[in-house]
């Protein structure tokens, strides 16, 4: 087969304009059969838009798309599926109230005598999941399983689309554990052997080097270039993605060392035997002013639960919290804000942003909630606050009146951060603040955490990336199966933490 025949997708000179942004500008993209092709770039680089163009969600303003050598116009997602393009989106768009099998088979379920053949449907779904090494009861509602399983179901659904020639995985691993990611990679390798071309979007560079044959980098809607991973050292890749060289990681550890001298001896917050049955087992926690405490643990180990209990999203049924020496009586987010707490929730879309509101309104929301119904911030103050944080966190938005739903994921995260910074909190709880965010922004957020600590504020930092927790935290609490296992302070080896996370001595 010649080189040319091998090319399954060829996009040339793609332009796409959205109100206020040139999302894609003269982008070329070529995908070959049996190739795992990483599509990399910062938030707002245009990855998602390029995928949307390829899957028929958006039409390009200009530019051509060839699939298997033939020029095509992709009008709709069905159209794309007919061409053999199937997608697993970043935000899982499945119905949590339907069963696993229904979610996987919906629209394609086998029929018998004109009605659905449930037995066959369930069997087929079970078999598809088994190929992914997932063995679960497919007749249970999807919502009763973890995000990871939901993600696997989404992939199973995409794979079942007959004649899949091109599979697009938009950040499939951001909520998967190491083991699940390995399973996914096995499946990807299998598909690759069958000649399926895979476009893989991720923020985990390790994974890129592990599985990808080709890397294409986008920046600000324009193509930077396509590379072979073995010829592109990691630092150079990062430099290409963000357009500058990073020494920041080194700076950060120095920064952290400096800030650790700043930790005050008096206790800001003290939780004693705090717990809620079926949610999180009782735990103790002490927080000092100027301190960053990291929560490490696997998905579902109770990290988010601790954050929610401290912030009053859920009420504890045992134990107590003391803040500034005073015992807390009533738990609710509103009261917590009043006490100087802030929580950037894990699920940005469902618990963080208010999509139809503007950037300005989203930023002032918590501050205004704390001020109450009648002490309304006037327009001028609102604009000042919004502009201040747009600048401080370099939020990429044409203006403060843009709807938040139109921003990229990383910028939405920054808006939520701005919302909490605007309330001037004493304790900022960040639950997975860097999930699905590009390298540059990640570093910015980590630096911000240390800056806050230096100002004498405390921070609880939750992340599934251990490296990140290590880099920012003065003290690390390890959780396992809804229980606090142990606590490390000072310099600790990553290995030691991983051991306690896994609860085993080997490893």
């Amino acid at each position, binding site marked *: 087969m010649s080189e040319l025949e091998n090319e399954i997708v060829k996009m040339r000179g793609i*332009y796409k*304009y959205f*109100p206020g942004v040139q999302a894609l500008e003269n982008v070329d993209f070529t995908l070959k059969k049996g190739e795992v092709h990483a599509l990399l770039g910062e938030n707002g680089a245009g990855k998602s838009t390029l995928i949307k163009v390829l899957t028929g969600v958006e039409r390009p*303003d*200009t530019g051509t798309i060839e699939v298997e050598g033939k020029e095509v116009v992709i009008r709709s997602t069905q159209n794309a599926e007919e061409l053999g393009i199937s997608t697993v989106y970043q935000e899982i768009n499945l119905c949590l109230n339907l069963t696993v099998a229904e979610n996987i088979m919906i629209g394609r379920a086998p029929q018998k005598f004109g009605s659905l053949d449930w037995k066959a449907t369930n069997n087929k779904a079970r078999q598809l999941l088994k190929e992914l090494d997932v063995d679960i009861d497919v007749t249970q509602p999807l919502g009763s399983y973890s995000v990871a399983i939901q993600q696997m179901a989404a992939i199973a659904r995409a794979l079942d689309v007959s004649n899949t020639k091109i599979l697009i995985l938009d950040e499939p691993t951001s909520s998967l554990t190491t083991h699940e990611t390995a399973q996914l990679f096995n499946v990807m390798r299998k598909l690759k052997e069958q000649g399926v071309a895979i476009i893989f979007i991720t923020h985990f560079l390790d994974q890129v080097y592990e599985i990808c044959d080709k890397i294409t980098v986008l920046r600000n809607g324009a193509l930077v270039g396509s590379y072979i991973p073995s010829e592109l050292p990691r630092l150079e890749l990062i430099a290409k993605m963000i357009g500058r060289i990073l020494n920041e990681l080194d700076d950060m550890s120095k920064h952290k060392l400096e800030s650790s001298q700043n930790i005050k001896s008096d206790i800001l917050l003290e939780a004693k035997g705090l717990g809620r049955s079926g949610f999180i087992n009782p735990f103790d926690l002490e927080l000092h002013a100027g301190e960053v405490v990291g929560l490490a643990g696997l998905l579902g180990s109770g990290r988010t639960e601790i954050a929610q209990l401290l912030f009053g*999203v859920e009420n504890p049924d045992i134990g107590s919290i003391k803040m500034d020496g005073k015992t807390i009586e009533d738990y*609710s*987010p*509103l009261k*917590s*804000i009043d006490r100087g707490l802030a*929580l950037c*929730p894990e699920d940005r879309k*469902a*618990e*963080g*942003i*208010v*999509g*139809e*509101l503007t950037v300005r*309104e989203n930023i002032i*929301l*918590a501050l*205004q*909630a*704390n*001020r*109450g*119904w*009648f*002490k*309304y*911030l006037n327009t001028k103050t609102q604009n000042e606050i919004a502009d201040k944080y747009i600048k401080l966190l370099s939020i990429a938005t044409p203006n403060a009146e843009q709807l938040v739903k139109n921003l990229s994921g990383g910028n939405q995260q920054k808006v939520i951060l701005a*919302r909490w910074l605007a309330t001037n909190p004493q304790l900022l709880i960040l639950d997975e603040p860097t999930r699905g965010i590009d390298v540059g922004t990640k570093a910015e957020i980590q630096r911000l955490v240390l800056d806050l600590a230096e100002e004498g504020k405390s921070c609880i930092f939750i992340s599934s990336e251990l490296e990140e927790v290590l880099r920012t935290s003065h003290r690390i609490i390890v959780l396992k199966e809804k229980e606090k296992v142990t606590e490390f302070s000072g310099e600790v080896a990553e290995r030691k933490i991983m051991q306690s996370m896994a609860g085993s001595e080997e490893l």
Partner: protein
Amino acid sequence: MTQNKVSLSLRKISDSKLVFPIIALALVLIFDLIFVRGFFNIEIRDGNIYGNLIDILRSGSTVILLALGMTLVIATGGVDLSVGAVMAISASVAALMMNPYVMAKELPENLQKLVSDPNFTYAPLWAVLLVTLFISALCGLWNGLLVAYAKIQPMVATLILMIAGRGIAQLITNGIRIQIFYEPYAFIGNGWAVLPFPLYIVVVVFVLLWIFTRKTSIGLFIESVGVNARSSFFSGIDEKKIKLLAYTICGLFAGMAGILASANIKTSDANNIGAALELDAILAVVIGGTLMVGGRFSLFASVIGALVMQATTTSMYAIGVPANAVLTIKGVVVILVLLLYSEQVRNFFRRITSPKKDVAT
């Protein structure tokens, strides 16, 4: 570049909430201009202004009041089906307070005359209004409690009062239609002071509600809760209180509408006052561009929406369409307006107003 700016501002206009309701209202009025002779005639008698346009505003005032309250409820992502029934309750309460003697089987002679005396009221007018509005607000509060605290789906929760409310209204007046003779009360519904009196009420109430929602954070919180209740809760907004407030205001406004309606027809007709008006109110809000799933709202757009509904009715009567057919034609108008909102049509508008990209590159 300038062309780009022009098309951008055109796009802004075509994205604004007010455009489609105003286009719809204009279309109805243009229809009248062409097909109804003298529709726009205005007469001045005794210093008061009369005419079809004034009639639209006057008859529309009840639906406008309902639509204003309904806007807040729909913006939180709910709906209130009980406003028609609450109108009936408020009418019954008001009528009973003004003239409880009507209900007596046998009245002493000295009191009999009072029953039809246009200057007699048992309770003073201010007390009548206050108690009536208070009870209507309680009805709204009840809906709000069911929706926000008992977590019953809004449609089901308010359906309860929609059905039970008319029964309650009849219980209040013992099933009797109380005629209202007290003139000052009737003036609220059918009086004129240059313009129809209800208009002044609508304007004042509109301004007050606008200030209450837009000059405080309440409007923002209502929208925030409507878009994403969970995020709002995480941000410290008490979504339950916000919902409770929206339903209470909706009940209060339904009570006002009930007062206007009963004052206009001078009776408390528990069966017919506000019948099916909840649907007009909901449609008015939808025409005003507030999504049924909640979120952004515009009080002014809802008022225009209510006027579209009323203008359609008034014009149909003006050209002599029978009452039954009016409902059908109203349906057609609503469909046309909602078509304007559909993504397809919006995209069509966008395509017209967007810059020609191919030429530029």
